[in-house]
């Protein structure tokens, strides 16, 4: 792999753009697909919006964008139109059902899933012009460690890794964290365990991941990797119901166990990452 995904790596024309990871940008990512990443992004956005934050979710999963399906939104103008110059950025931003804003990728974005310098520049331009207008920007990235995912993650100040307790999901989450540490010198990765079978099982999983990282991943002595357990989202039949109805859990049944867990996740992010709204 080359240095394409390092946030500071230099394609000359990116030099005038911010070199530090952008503030208030949280990448929601996972090692494996199908662990509920988009579900978490959308509902977390709704929970943060409910707490008074101005939130934007950006569909950064160019290969397999699903945010439109989760939100049941099929807009005429998407990120794709912005990329092709057919629409202005502000016209592609829509209000989503949960009281937040959303920028959907659009089906044509697969053409851009190969990360050329032009795509990088355009992405960076779009995100840096959006950030000042929101309290928090969530990047709903793809799974794994493709160039686009790593690039999207490199733009974020925080990483929220979604994993389920299944062995394959854990292995892939662990492998992805290793890459984030190696390639991007990340020191902190926040973990949320989705589909936790019983209370407390998520924390056990995060601790386990931390132990394996400590034992097998070599870092500089003063730069240890720290996983922060942000919470468990329990297995809950209401989640399936909401997904099937293409509605946000935070709107249909915010009081169900999974909904409460997502509200707690929002509060925990507020305590540690996002300043409270004025």
């Amino acid at each position, binding site marked *: 792999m080359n240095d394409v995904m390092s946030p500071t790596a230099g394609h000359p024309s990116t030099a005038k753009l911010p070199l530090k990871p952008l503030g208030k940008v949280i990448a929601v990512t996972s090692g*494996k697909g199908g662990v509920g990443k988009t579900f978490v992004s959308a509902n977390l956005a709704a929970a943060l919006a409910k707490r008074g934050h101005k939130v934007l979710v950006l569909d950064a999963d160019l290969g*397999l964008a699903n945010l439109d399906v989760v939100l049941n939104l099929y807009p005429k103008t998407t990120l794709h139109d912005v990329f092709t110059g057919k629409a202005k950025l502000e016209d592609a931003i829509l209000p989503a059902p949960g009281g937040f804003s959303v920028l959907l990728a659009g089906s044509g974005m697969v053409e851009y899933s190969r990360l050329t310098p032009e795509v990088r520049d355009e992405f960076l331009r779009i995100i840096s012009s959006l950030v000042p207008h929101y309290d928090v920007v969530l990047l709903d990235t793809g799974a794994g460690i493709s160039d686009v995912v790593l690039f999207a993650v490199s733009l974020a100040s925080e990483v929220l890794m979604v994993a389920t307790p299944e062995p394959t999901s854990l292995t*892939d989450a662990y*492998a992805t964290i290793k890459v984030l540490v190696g390639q991007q010198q990340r020191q902190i990765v926040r973990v949320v365990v989705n589909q936790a079978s019983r209370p407390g099982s998520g924390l*056990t999983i995060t601790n386990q991941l931390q*132990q*394996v990282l400590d034992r097998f991943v070599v870092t500089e002595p003063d730069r240890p990797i720290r996983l922060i357990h942000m919470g468990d989202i329990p297995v809950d039949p209401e989640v399936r119901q909401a997904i099937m109805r293409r509605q946000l859990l935070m709107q249909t049944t915010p009081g169900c166990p999974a909904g409460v867990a997502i509200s707690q996740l929002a509060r925990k992010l507020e305590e540690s990452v996002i300043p409270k709204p004025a």
Partner: protein
Amino acid sequence: MAPLTLSPQIDLQDLQLDDARALLKHDAKEIQQEAEESPTGYLQRVIDGLCEISLKDPLTGLGNRRHLRSILERSIETVARSGESVLLLLLDIDHFKSINDTYGHQAGDQVLQAIANCLADCVRPMDTVVRYGGEEFAVILPHCPPLFGRAVAERIRQTVASLSIPVSPLINVQATISIGGAYAPEWVRSTADLWIERADQQLYRAKSSGRNQVCLDQPRELSVSAEEKGLLFAHIATEEATMIRNLSGDAPLDLQGNATKRVNA
């Protein structure tokens, strides 16, 4: 089934079917209207025959480029959702022009046919072999884990290299192939063009580093060793042990769901 519109009786005499018949006959699929066969039934068979040959390469009998595209597009859909490993190989006969120049174009065709047959024999029934164009072939291998991809490609390369192809009663020709391969990106809906392009880049690499070799674009490895996995799943083992302990601590239930008396073993 009731027709949606009033279907006029087809009069085969009104249709210009001679060209279609000639094409099918040329492909050894002569289709004659059978006694008492309805015109619709007959036409359907002609259309099916045309569809079939439109996906085939006439010289080698393999699928053609059109067939490749439809298989690639279907694979992309599967991979995007299942994460299954699908490998595309592009194979090109080395120095094919010199075979043509030395032994003539007919010999060239015989080499193409022999290699086509060999490729078809090398792969599993679920795999697809097509002639991509000229002296280039493509193989699509579904359910092909990254570890096997190189082995399969290497076996194909060696089998072709070991062929001795008769091109005239006294002359046998040996040919080698270069192979470039790329996996469909997992969990991502890519395009057939991008996929072919990645395999083609590897083929170029195989050619430019001396031919008669295999170059694969490996999927980026999520490498986690057995030791790491052992420790990673330790909690699952502990959880199971706890569960078993809890279960054996409680009195097991009988078939009716009543607690049974524990007997000390």
